[in-house]
């Protein structure tokens, strides 16, 4: 074998020749089945099974017919796909005396969701803006109250709020629940908005001032267009939080007519009469999760950010 060193003088062709002459070089190729890789893929497989199997079983079961489910074979894909369970979960499943399925709960949830999301974001963003714009006497106090409000467990306030709503005549009504959602969503969202707005360079505000913009002018023309991401994040926090809420729904709504979707899902699944229809239950679960899941797949990264930011709330 020639010494590649002497070829160094003929520089242009050196690389090509050296490759021919010195045999394989560079880092040693990794074996596909090294111990580390086996461990890596083994662990991944187990982790994947734990996280995906439930989702897979849910999906598969929801499109099987009951006779097929009774045969066992939990993991096998459906022999014939039927959407009957979905239809039944949506329109026919019974909770107590009502037999109109989840649709009722869905519309209740929508009617709770839309006003509470719009209201809480409107109020929280204005508050966050006011807090970030001025440092005033007592803002520290307000701040601490906000943080406390974001972290205190809801259980502590559960019952007195029942009394308050009852005295206001709102107990059991959707309006009462909307009010509760708005108030409980406010601390975390205000903090979010305030932090985001505080990072906007103050020169922008000053320039806008000089150009004659007032409080609202700055808010609508400078702050809002610049802060679209944080509005989306707050929207995601509120939508998923309120849609998935169970505790408030079951506590502050007194009649099955007005239960939100999660509560109704629980009631459908736990109703004791008749045979257990696993496929209907799974279809109902999927239907209930549809709104957050759609938002999740549509918004991706921002969703993750929203959930991460909202995870601290009481």
């Amino acid at each position: 074998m020639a010494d590649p060193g002497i070829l160094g003088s003929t520089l242009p062709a050196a690389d090509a020749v050296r490759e021919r002459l010195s045999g394989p070089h560079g880092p040693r190729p990794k074996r596909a089945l090294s111990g580390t890789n086996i461990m890596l893929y083994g662990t991944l497989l187990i982790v994947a099974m734990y996280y995906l199997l439930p989702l897979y079983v849910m999906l598969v079961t929801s499109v099987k017919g009951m006779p097929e489910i009774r045969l066992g074979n939990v993991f096998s894909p459906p022999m014939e796909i039927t959407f009957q369970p979905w239809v039944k979960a949506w329109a026919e499943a019974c909770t107590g005396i009502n037999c109109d399925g989840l649709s009722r709960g869905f519309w209740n949830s929508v009617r709770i969701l839309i006003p509470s999301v719009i209201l809480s974001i409107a109020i929280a963003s204005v508050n966050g803006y006011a807090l970030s714009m001025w440092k005033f006497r007592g803002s520290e106090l307000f701040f601490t109250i906000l943080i406390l409000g974001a972290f205190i467990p809801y259980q502590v306030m559960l019952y007195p709020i029942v009394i308050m709503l009852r005295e206001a005549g709102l107990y059991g009504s959707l309006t009462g629940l909307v009010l509760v959602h708005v108030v409980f969503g406010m601390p975390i969202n205000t903090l979010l908005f305030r932090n985001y707005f505080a990072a906007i360079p103050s020169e922008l505000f000053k320039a806008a001032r000089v150009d004659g913009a007032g409080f609202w002018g700055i808010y609508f023309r400078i702050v809002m267009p610049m802060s679209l991401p944080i509005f989306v994040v707050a929207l995601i926090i509120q939508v998923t939080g309120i849609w998935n809420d169970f505790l408030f729904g079951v506590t502050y709504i007194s009649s099955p007519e007005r239960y939100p979707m999660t509560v109704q899902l629980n009631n459908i699944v736990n109703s004791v009469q008749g045979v257990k229809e696993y496929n209907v239950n799974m279809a109902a679960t999927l239907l209930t999760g549809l709104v957050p899941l759609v938002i999740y797949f549509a918004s991706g990264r921002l969703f993750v950010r929203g959930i991460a930011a909202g995870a601290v709330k009481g």
Partner: protein
Amino acid sequence: MNPALQGLMTIAVGVGGCLAYFYFSNLVLDRFIFPARGAQAGRNINRANMVRPWLFVFPAFFFLLLYLGYPVFETLRLSLTDRALGGAFVGFANYEQMMNEPKFWEAMRNNMLWLIVVPAASTAFGLLAAQLTDRIGWGNIAKSLIFMPMAISFVGASVIFKLIYEARPVDAAQIGVMNAVWLNFEGGIWSFIFLRVFPAILCGAFAVIAAYVGYLAARPLWEDRPGPREGVMMKGARAFLGLFGLWLAWVSVRGVWGVLTASLPYGEPINWLTLPFYNNFLLMVILIWIQTGFAMVILSAALRGIPEETIEAAIIDGAKPLQLFFQIKVPQIMGTIVVVWTTITLVVLKIFDIVFAMTNGQWETQVLANYMYDKLFRANDWGVGSASAIVIMALVTPILVWNVHNARKEMR
């Protein structure tokens, strides 16, 4: 009235009311209370600017106090009264009654179990998933799938796992995933590997981790380190954590022995949710399933933020992958790990939906939040219910104080 119309009205009235309040209160302040004209224009502008922030924050302030502040004290007061006596003051009788109920202590025990297992497991799995998914090409898909349970409600997750734990009579085909898998084990070599060796390894790993964390916490007690001296409180906490880790390790080592020697009823379906004590862990699995995604996302961001130089330096110094992970990466993201841990701890302390939907506290699975709900809304006993709410509050308070402290530090 049409419900859609009603909803629209609510929105219109709510948003319109808020805007009108903001706008007109501002107007009144500027035009009438402190008008910026006349002899005292300058002073008035200053005053108006001092008052204005409060004008805008006032509605939020008012509702927060009304809905968050007042209820806390009201709960405290209710916990000292008795409904049966028409709300008369009874001192600590409710707490006493609660302490004498075995169900309460069961809930306390279970909450402590949840508190130990769920944050640890979620954080560990999250860290594992973050590290592994960073190394493979389709890591982002894996990540988005692991995160997906976060989008499903706790109740939805519970319904899924109900199917997984479902048990049917011996002669019927098993529908539940756990039982379908379980019936495949006949006591042969694979049963030995999967049901004895594997859990034993898991249990042993937990023992090692517990001992290690305890050691890490307690180490500064006997090591001299530069830096500010720690107070007695901190030292006590470190000693407690160290001993606690040691105790946990001991319990899990005993668990290893138990797993290896337990007699298992092969061949018959098991009603998983009614197995006392162990069913708690089956419920915890659900929350871990949900929370891992959260831990993974946060920790993955932290792992990416580690400066490359430190890793390169370690590789040049000859660090092996495991060393690299535990001695270079983990110490650098310790702060994030603690944040994830405490956040999940907060979730766990208030865990309600899962237990409510799965077992409703039967078969020794009661937890505090469900106990409270039981007392308040089923037994209609606001005294004991409020007392248990205060207990939850007391358990959360240390983390709460720490969180508030941190958040304020961050925002300055």
